[in-house]
């Protein structure tokens, strides 16, 4: 027998698959199979999400601890409500991996858990692009999850990427520009923008187990949205107005609120607050590949919401501006541009800080973080380098002063969308969208994480979250 074993040891070409090495979760708790009964786990319609159900011999506030084969990290759901039976979803798992799980609860100061259960996740769509993690400084990055749209020519997905740049969730959504987790953590929100100002657009609420999405719809909603604390969705919208005795029709932007009960209303229309410069000609709006007689005037592309001040912030490319809209009144509070003729703030900078801005975030009440695509064509660079501006707002002086300026080491051109988000006190996630790149930069503006997509694939908008629960 020993000889045979030795021979087998040196005969390698066609080894059978090694038995699974499952993580040891025993140390996490005391096994108590009498407490937890009927523990089951199933793969959901999103194959990387597992649904775990259990019954307990007494009501307990239980959670599920779980880990992939050979994974260093043991994950856990939050404690559920006290109950004798419950179910929960396991998130953050990779495709096609064996997973070990236990249901656990603390009783009289002792962690008690079910017997281990082993399940294998399924595969995600094979046409999701491969990701290439170019930089991964785990000591300096803030680890979390990227809920983000992935855009290919033939398909689009709402996805979640883990801190290592690997897909852990995906759901196909036609035409989406943005994917973001709902505030209550139970669903992915994604948009299906209207194709023109007079057609309907949708906001999808997709359960994380891949169940049937619910829809909120409104005419002319487009490009970007944000969820409010009560579940209302505020989306950018379009409106068309006639000028010059009806000889010109201009496309402007609105803010449309879509409430959970299915009703919607326009709460802000830029035409009501800014008079278009009719001495200028604007590019024709293209619908379905065909130019129309409607001129693309304001071209607002992003919306953000600040809960503390109950205000919207949008970025307008028509005059390279950031606009603040008071939600309670629907009034335009102020406009920030580099141009003293149009700005309500004095921009104290020798550089142009706002060039085709495409995202804005209010940080610490008095700082704006702005993603700028840079100005394309018409005397500017054909392939400008996108950059992020950080601007301090001094309300007393009425002045905006640059605090920071970040651009990639190598020039990155972003002709489509673009986004910057401060994720903790110092670190910022920059989504270079159409360049297929997401980076995280630290306080010294060093890149501590860089995820790249290959040629032909891009990111849409999204949001970074620290936890999936």
């Amino acid at each position: 027998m020993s000889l045979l074993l030795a021979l087998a040891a040196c005969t390698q070409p066609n080894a059978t698959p090694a038995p699974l090495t499952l993580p040891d979760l025993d140390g996490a708790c005391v096994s108590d199979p009498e407490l937890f009964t009927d523990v089951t786990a199933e793969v959901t319609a999103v194959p990387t999400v597992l649904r775990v159900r259990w019954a307990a011999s007494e009501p307990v506030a239980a959670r599920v601890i779980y880990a992939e084969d050979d994974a260093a990290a043991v994950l856990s759901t939050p404690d559920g409500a006290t109950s004798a039976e419950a179910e929960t979803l396991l998130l953050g798992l990779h495709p096609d991996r064996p997973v070990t799980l236990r249901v656990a609860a603390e009783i009289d100061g002792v962690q008690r858990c079910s017997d281990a259960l082993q399940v294998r996740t399924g595969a995600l769509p094979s046409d999701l692009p491969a990701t290439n993690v170019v930089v991964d400084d785990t000591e300096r990055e803030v680890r979390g999850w990227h809920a983000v749209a992935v855009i290919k020519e033939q398909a689009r997905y709402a996805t979640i990427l883990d801190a290592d740049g690997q897909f852990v969730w995906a759901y196909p959504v036609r035409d989406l520009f943005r994917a973001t987790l709902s505030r209550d953590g139970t669903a992915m929100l994604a948009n299906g923008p209207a194709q023109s100002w007079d057609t309907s657009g949708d906001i999808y609420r997709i359960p994380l187990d891949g169940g049937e999405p619910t829809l909120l719809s409104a005419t002319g909603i487009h490009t970007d949205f944000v969820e409010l604390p009560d579940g209302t969705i505020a989306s950018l919208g379009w409106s068309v107005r006639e000028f010059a005795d009806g000889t010109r029709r201009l496309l402007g932007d609105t803010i449309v609120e879509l409430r959970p009960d299915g009703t919607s209303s326009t709460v802000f229309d830029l035409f009501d607050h800014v008079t278009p410069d009719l001495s200028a000609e604007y590019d024709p709006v293209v619908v379905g590949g065909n130019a129309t007689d409607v001129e693309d005037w304001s071209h607002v592309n992003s919306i953000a919401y600040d809960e503390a001040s109950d205000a919207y912030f949008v970025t307008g490319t028509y005059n390279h501006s950031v606009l603040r809209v008071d939600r309670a009144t629907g009034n335009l509070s102020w406009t920030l541009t580099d141009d003293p003729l149009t700005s309500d703030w004095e921009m104290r900078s020798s550089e142009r800080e706002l060039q085709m801005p495409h995202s804005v975030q209010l940080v610490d009440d008095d700082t704006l973080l702005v993603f700028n695509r840079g100005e394309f064509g018409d005397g500017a660079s054909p392939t400008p380098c996108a950059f992020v501006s950080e601007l301090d707002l001094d309300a007393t002086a009425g002045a905006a002063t640059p605090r920071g300026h970040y651009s990639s080491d190598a020039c990155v051109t972003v002709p489509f969308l673009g986004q910057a988000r401060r994720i903790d006190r110092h670190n910022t996630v920059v989504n270079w969208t159409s360049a297929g790149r997401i980076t995280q930069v630290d306080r010294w503006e060093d890149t501590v994480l860089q995820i790249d997509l290959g040629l032909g694939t891009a990111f849409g908008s999204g949001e970074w979250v620290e936890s999936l629960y």
Partner: protein
Amino acid sequence: MTALLLGLLACIAAPPPVLPCDDCALTDANNFAWSSTLDAPAWHLASGADATIAWDTLDRDFYGDPFDPAQDVGRVALVALPGLTPEDVADALAHDDLAQADVGLFVFCAPGGATTCRLSDFELFGNGMAVETYFVAGTGTWLLALLTPEDTIGAVAFLIPDAASTTTSVALTPDDSTLALDVDFRSLAPLAVRADEAFHVDWSGLTHDGLGNDLSLGTLDRLVVGRFDAPLSEVETRAHALTESADALWTLDVTGSEAELASLTGETPFTGIDGDATWLLALYCSSCLNPAPRFATVLVTAEDPT
């Protein structure tokens, strides 16, 4: 201990017998190795001026295969790569590691059966490219790729807007662009299976593709087994078109990282391999830009030890 020593000596004294597998775990050692060299012309064109690109005499693609200039071009891609030289782009294409972030702009022309496109014909989502604004000196290398109706690349050229140039026409001709493949099926560890029996394969242990790049297992979506009535050395020369040159072919759409080969479909049921022909097993990623298989190995027959 004695038996163990004897066993080890047996390893040294003679090659180990190759045992057939039933549940076959594919490893990187089983994978073929390949590299490629892209050679394409660089055309310096007048900066900011419209230009005509013609391929009417292009009767061979960059592999040297027959090519119909009217029927085999579904559309033409033009991609600005601001920070790269033609050599950089050729190298990145050959190594399959061109990143989207390298791209400044990209536009397409749909010739609709014609064999020319003008720069001013290129557009994206209905937005035309203003040549005088965008195709100007200082914007680096523009990759021009003729794409087949299946969206694979048939030929490429590099365009460079140059303030010193007055050229406004480009003529793509056979042999201008070539993609030379160097494929090695003979250095790999063949996968030994029993003759005339289907088997199970598991590729969860693969980490790299045949180019040596990291392999994303989730992108593999098609498994192919081919029989070739030609020696391996000849099959290597047709590596860019393995499926087309196989004498018999069985395919299976796959998800995950394992498959039962009894599920393969072809003109006849797949009942295993024989020792009379050259057999290859390959895994493809149909959504990848590069059409080469990510994994390919040679199948050989072996017998159980008696």
